[in-house]
Each structure stands twice: as C-alpha cells, then as structure tokens.
C-alpha cells in the first residue's frame, strides 16, 4: 500500500521534473535561435534534411487525400445537387484542417523521429559531451538550426499538402466525374477566404511545427543514452507529437472558427 503510493508520487515527481526540463530546454533553444540565423549554411543544411526530404511523402499523401475528398465529397454533394461546390469543400477541409493536421502527423513520423534518433545517437556516442568539452555549446550548434528548420519547413509542407490535395480533388472532380472546369476554380476562388481560412491554417501549421520540433529535439536531447533509450525516445516523439497535434488542433479550431 505504502509502496504503491510512493511509486505514484515518484512517477508524478519524475513527470513534472521532465516537463520542467522540457521548458528550460525550449527557453535555451529559443535564446540560441538568433545566433543560429547567422550560421546560414548550417540552417540550409538542416532545411534540406528536415524539409526537402519530407517533401515526397507530403506530396504523395496530399494527392491521395485530395482525391479521396473529391470522391467522397461528390457522392454526398450530388444528392443535394450541390456538386458544383466540390472544390470549396475539398479546399476548406484541406486548408483549415487536413493540411496542417495530416502534414503535421506525417512530418512527426518522417522528420521528427529522424531528429530524435539523430540527437539521441549523438548523445549516446558522447558527441554532445565532446562538443561541450571543446567549449562549443551543443544547443546553439546542433539543436537551434534543426529547431529553426522544423519551424520553417512545417508551414511550407502543410501549404504544399493542401495545394497538391486541391489538385487531387480537381483530377477526380473534373477529370473523372466530369464537373465543369471553370466552375471548379471560380467557386474555390470566391468561397475560400484568405484571412479566415488560409491564414488560420498557416498559424496552425506554424504551431504544429514548433511543437513537433520541440518534442523531437527534447526527446533526443533528454534520451537515456543507450540504444534502447534512443528507440524509446523515437517512439515517444511520434506518439506525443500526434497527441499534441490533435489536441492543439481542437483548441485552435475552437478559438479560430467560433463565430
């Protein structure tokens, strides 16, 4: 009985200690970000690893999600004779929700897990300690450029996801189901609002980018430096990122679209 309560207490303390470390880590990273802007080549390199290498999966998934939306949307809308609005339905679903959320989930699986594994391995092979002993701060040299790259890549990838998704909807709606080409685009142009829809979607994707990069880098930096520890940290990155994305999406949606 006593030990059970003790264990619960210990788990609670460990949890809050970890949360504390995560916030201290974020503050340290944010403080090193300006300096890492100056080291432009490091940033460009990370943009390639974090952003460019995630593009393929984002584009392919965006296309399929858009095509499915086209098919499903058409089947529903045609009952009401509203199939002309297919483009609006596809675009709004993508820009407001699926773009940021699905791109975020994919980004966490592709780039987030890779970041955790990379940093975790650097820690377990003493590369981070080694840097510290060479009087180089690993947070500004290694972590900050990756964080910034994640922050920049995520909104761009989400935008790409939505754009390709709309094209997917277009292939299905206009190419396959014979909707009018002009109506598709003009409906889309008149009904999708820049500020209300697109900007809010971009804000979501920036928030997701920040959270995913933070979780991924913290998990790597805080990992137990063994191969088992790195494996677990990688899994945690994906799970926690996914939960954070979905939870935050609900909160952000409630705040943004509540009129």
């Amino acid at each position: 009985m006593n030990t059970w309560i003790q264990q619960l207490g210990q788990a609670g303390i460990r949890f809050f200690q970890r949360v504390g470390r995560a916030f201290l880590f974020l503050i340290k990273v944010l403080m090193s970000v300006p300096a890492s802007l100056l080291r432009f080549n490091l940033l460009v390199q990370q943009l390639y690893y974090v952003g460019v290498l995630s593009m393929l999966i984002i584009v392919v998934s965006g296309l399929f999600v858009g095509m499915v939306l086209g098919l499903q949307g058409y089947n529903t809308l045609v009952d009401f004779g509203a199939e002309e609005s297919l483009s609006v339905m596809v675009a709004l679903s993508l820009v407001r929700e699926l773009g940021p959320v699905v791109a975020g989930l994919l980004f966490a699986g592709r780039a987030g897990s890779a970041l955790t594994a990379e940093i975790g391995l650097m820690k377990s092979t003493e590369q981070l300690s080694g840097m510290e002993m060479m009087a180089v701060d690993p947070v500004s040299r290694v972590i900050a450029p990756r964080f910034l790259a994640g922050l920049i890549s995520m909104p761009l990838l989400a935008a790409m996801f939505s754009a390709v998704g709309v094209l997917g909807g277009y292939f299905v709606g206009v190419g396959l189901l014979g909707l009018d080409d002009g109506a598709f685009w003009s409906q889309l142009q008149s009904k999708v609002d820049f500020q209300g829809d697109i900007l809010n979607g971009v804000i979501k994707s920036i928030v997701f980018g920040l959270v995913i990069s933070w979780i991924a880098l913290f998990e790597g930096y805080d990992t137990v430096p063994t191969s088992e520890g790195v494996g677990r940290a990688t899994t945690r990155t994906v799970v926690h990122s996914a939960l954070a994305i979905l939870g935050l999406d609900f909160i952000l949606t409630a705040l943004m679209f509540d009129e």
Partner: protein
Amino acid sequence: MTAGIEYKNREQPERSLVKVRQMTFRRGSRTIFDEIDLDIPVGKVTAIMGPSGTGKTTLLRLIGGQLRPDSGTIHVDGDNVSELSRRSLFKLRKRMGMLFQSGALLTDLSVFDNVAFPLREHTDLPETIIHHLVLMKLNSVGLRGAYRLMPNELSGGMARRVALARTIALDPMMIMYDEPFAGQDPISMGVLVKLIKLLNATLDMTSIVVSHDIHETTSIADYIYILSEGKVVGFGTPQEIEESESAQVQQFMQGLADGPVPFHYPAPDFKTELFGLGG
C-alpha cells in the same frame, strides 16, 4: 584513506595543474567519491586506475566542469571549476582536451572537418591556414592520408587517433584520456602509447590517463592513482605501486578474483536463500 595520509607526507616538488580537495560526489544515494584528495602535477603523465564503475570517467567530467562536486573543491590551473561562469568555463575548456572513450567524432563530418571543427569554432583563421594546421595535426598522429574519410570508415584505433588530433588542434595545456587503450588491438595500443608519450613530451603538456590496462599504463605513467569504492587507495610512481603492500592495490594490480573487492555481489547467505524460501 591510508593513501591520502601517505600522499600528504610526500615531498611534492612539482606544481599541480589540477588540485582536488576533500571532494565528495554522489549520484542519488550512492557516493561515488568520498572526500578524495588528488593532484595532477604539471608536465607529467598521471594515470588514474581502478575497477570499472568506480567513477574514473566521472572524475574526468568533474575536472572538466561537466559535473559539480557535492562538496569540496576542484582547481584547474588556479580556477575553481565549479564556481566559474559559463563563459570562463568555456575559456578554460579550450585549454584542456578530453579524449572520450568512444572518440566522440562528429559522425556527419569528415576526418578533416572533425579536426578543423574546434579551429573553425574558436578562431577566425583563414581557410588556408586551417588546412595547413589540420594536416599538421593529422600528420602528428600518422593519419594525414586519411583526411578525406568519414568516421564510419575508420577502425576503432584510427578513430581515437583522429579524436586525438582534434583534441590537440587548439594546443591545450592538458589532455584527459578516457580509457584510450580499451578494446584496441596490440598494434593500435602500441601506437597510442607512443603517441601519448610523444605528445606529452614534445608539446609540453600535462596528461591524465584513465585506464585499467595495467601493463600499458605503468609503461607511460609518471604517477599512478588507484581508486576504489570512492577512495584513493594507492598513489605513487609505477614502481612504488607495484611494491605496495596494500591489499586493495595488490588485488587490482594482479587481477585477483577475490580480495578486498569480493568476488560475490552482496547477497544473503546461500544456504538460507536455497532452503529458507518459506521464511
């Protein structure tokens, strides 16, 4: 404890670069160091030996300021390491190198860029001079020809030599070697022994070598400390250590399975455990 007294009474003409006084360090409830005193004389090779898990790596991290003692002091070249600001600590670290057990080469950089790393981070030298310096440092560890290779293309011994070249890139006053011989074949071991000796003599450095390879270590060390269970149990020149009458020192030096460090991990009486399960 006995060794501490023995040590304090010694004539000690050399200046100490590192002075550890009454230093205690704990991890959780476990005391890794219990009020130890230790001196690293300038310009010499000092070996720190002891069974695995006694805290040899921990000691190097304490000296390098990555960990703080719970009590007591550690002075390096006159500065109290645990009281330095981050900036001063980094300044001090530029003057001390540490060779990690694994080499700790940056895996995404080539051999050349690894050795150039501290130069690029800490100096504004033009690229041509960095190039010359890097090749010089690599040449001094015999790996000038390998500058294009990536760390994963190096053997364990080569990786350690590259790490050594990187450590001497900024011409430190002191190098700490963490088990430089562990897991090396006899030839690499010979090369490393020779390099440590040579660098210490030619670059006028102070070296701390952490190791449990008795033969290699006694062949290069000027002084040896033996640590066990949080204490310094032996100190002296290699010859003094070999002739020491301390049971702990003899167990370690001769590799005896049982002695002051028992063969059995602490356990209840075997008979009771086998037959007394009901109780």
